[in-house]
């Protein structure tokens, strides 16, 4: 078996890439994609720790499935939000939605 560390590194790398995407992409959908990446990275991390530390427990798997479901729901909600925003501002560029500016 390869060591746990490699899975953690991959998860971390994915997380950081996703974070970078969230922080730097202009398009709101791309930001959502970055969020998805982060969530998947977290999932990998979770599953790696389950498989290597307590493989017999079903709790790891259950947790991962909940994360997936939440991610999916969250994307649905996010997209609904973006559609509403698009109807209002005619644009999904994150920088343009700054009504809460002082």
């Amino acid at each position, binding site marked *: 078996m390869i060591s746990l560390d490699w899975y953690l590194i991959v998860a971390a790398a994915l997380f950081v890439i996703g974070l970078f995407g969230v922080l730097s992409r202009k398009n709101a959908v791309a930001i959502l994609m970055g969020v998805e990446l982060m969530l998947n990275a977290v999932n990998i991390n979770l599953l790696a720790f389950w498989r290597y530390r307590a493989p017999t427990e079903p709790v790891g798997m259950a947790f991962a499935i909940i994360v997936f479901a939440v991610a999916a729901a969250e994307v649905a909600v996010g997209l609904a939000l973006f559609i509403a925003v698009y109807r209002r501002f005619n644009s999904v560029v994150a920088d343009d*939605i700054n009504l809460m500016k*002082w």
Partner: protein
Amino acid sequence: MPTTTLLWLLPVFPLVAFALIVLFTNRNKALSHTLAVGAAFLSWLGAMVIFVRALQIGPEALAEHPIDSWVNWLPTGDGFLKIGVMLDPLTAAVLFFVAWTILMIFVYSIGYHNFGQPEGDHDKKGLPPHGATIVDEHGHKHVVPSVEPMYSRFFAYIGLFAFGMYLLAVSDNLLTLFVGWEIMGLCSYLLIGFWFAKPSARAAGIKAFMTTRVGDVFMLLGIAYLYKATGTLSFQDIFKPEMLHALANVDSGVLGLSAAGLIGLLLFIGTVGKSAQWPLHVWLPDAMEGPTPVSAMIHAATMVSAGVYMVIRMFPLLKAGSANEAFLSPLVVMAFIGAFTALFAATIAVAQNDIKRVLAYSTISQLGYMIAALGAGSYVAATFHLITHAFFKALLFLGSGSVIHGMEHGVLHTGNHDVDPQDMFNMGGLAKKMPITFWTFLIGGFALSGFPVLTAGFWSKDEILSSAFLGGHPVVFWTLAVAAFLTAFYTMRQITLTFLGEPRTKEAEHAQETPWTMTVPLMVLAFFAVTAGWVGIPETFPGLGGLLPNWFHHWVGATYETLLEEAHLVGEMAEGHSLVPLMTSLTVSLGGLFLGWLTYKDVKSPDPATDPLKRWLGPVHTVLQNKYYFDELYQVIFIRPAAWFAEVFTFRWVDRGAIDGTIHAIARAVFDAGKALAYGFDLPVISGAGDLIGNTVRSFGRAFRVVQTGRVQDYMVAAMTSVVAFGALVYYLLVFAH
């Protein structure tokens, strides 16, 4: 009714009339004069009852035990100042003439102020009435005399005046006398300035009040000194031999006078003011600005008589004060001033052309006679002349008022208002037009001149001349004799110019006799002017002496006879009777009358420059006519400095400059301090602090709000950074700090 109640009531009636007229009946002329004359009548009635009762008691008993009644008035430390009334022989005699003259003047005033006549065309309150135009049944317009606009006010004022005089006459102490004295001073101001819209009348009123005030101040000093020395002001207490001796023996420290002497001198100065003796005589001629009944009242019946009455009343004190023969002892001063004034005023009177002014100077002169009589030591003679003078001078003044009314009738008829109805040179021939006035005036004039036997003035003047001669005062005697000559001269001048000959102007031609309200008082007073002398015929008079007892001398003399004897103050009267005074008196009186008639019987022109005396005397006449320029002298010495002091020093420098200046400076300083505080402290410091706090908060806010960009990604960056930082911190604390 007990006599003391009557005495108290005498002043009260006119006072009540005054109050009622002022408060209630001012608009109703008839009611006002009824109240006033009614009050005068009641007081007259009371005075007559008192007089009869006094006669019944008899002079010696009355002198020994005067009827007295007093009340406590003002508390002073351990005693009281009192108001009181008294009846002694002198009071009874004074009340007699005061009551008659006041009543006659009150009745006369009704006619004088033209009661019953229409209101004037353009009469204003404060100016003498000017006449009313009426249209008779044929359509002819006539200008008739109009009724005085301030009719009721006049009666109110003379009511107050009567109150003052009655109060003075019945008073039993110097304080009550002084109160009456001052009330009359006020009334003289009010009445002389009665026609207040005339500047000359206003000035004359002030002049009268101020001049008599000068005298009053000294009189008050005398009263104060008397009170301090004796503790009492009541006549009964002062006129005791012990008291007089005590006052005569104390040195006052002034000019070698005893206390009695100084008090007497100070009181006499009050009389100099009130009775218009030189040098305070200047107010009396100007007082002719008032209506003629006022002149009669002030200058005959009441006010100037009050001055002489006071010194007669205080005679024992004056005599005691002159015992040590100091330089300015009261009797010597009085003899000098009295005789001097008598001659001085008589010389001025011969050069006056206004009918009332002649009488004014005549009054001053006759008062000088009375004062000189007192100075010569005979208070009985002074009282006698006081009483006869009151009657004939009141008669003369009222008569002159009647003449002026008659002349005004003429002036209204011709419409020529440039003609002065009071100038004797505009008159003439009035004997035919105004017979009653003429005969009564003649009787009064003869009484003034001392026409022998038939007039009262002769007897009283003769008594004064005799007492001066026999008392060893030759200078006084001859001065008074010359004055008597001049008196007769100017009186006959006056009568000749006014009544005899032919009318010199159209106005005199149209003169008319005056109504009964004016002529009846003249006749009553003329009766007294003839008969009042016969109560005092001296026993030593050749022929008539001894036929009638000298009631007057007996009566008034009893007042102080015993007191003067017991106090050893009786003067030495030369025994024996000389005919010199009598002969002198006859000569000057008849000679003066004849010469006056002779000089003036041929004056035809109304121009006063044709006065024969002007030719004889030349420039001296001008000096006399200008009254020796005393008014001008006083103007320069006293009036102008006083006016300057009031206007410049007190008003401009002290009041506006110093006092107002200080106040304004304080105001400015306070204002400037306030402004400094406001702009220097309140605004920058206190407001500034508040503003500073606000501004600071705002600048912090401005600085920090840049964090809120409204962009989600920026918030995410911030969040991530914080997570990293917190994570590091927690990692450090949990892993390394343990």
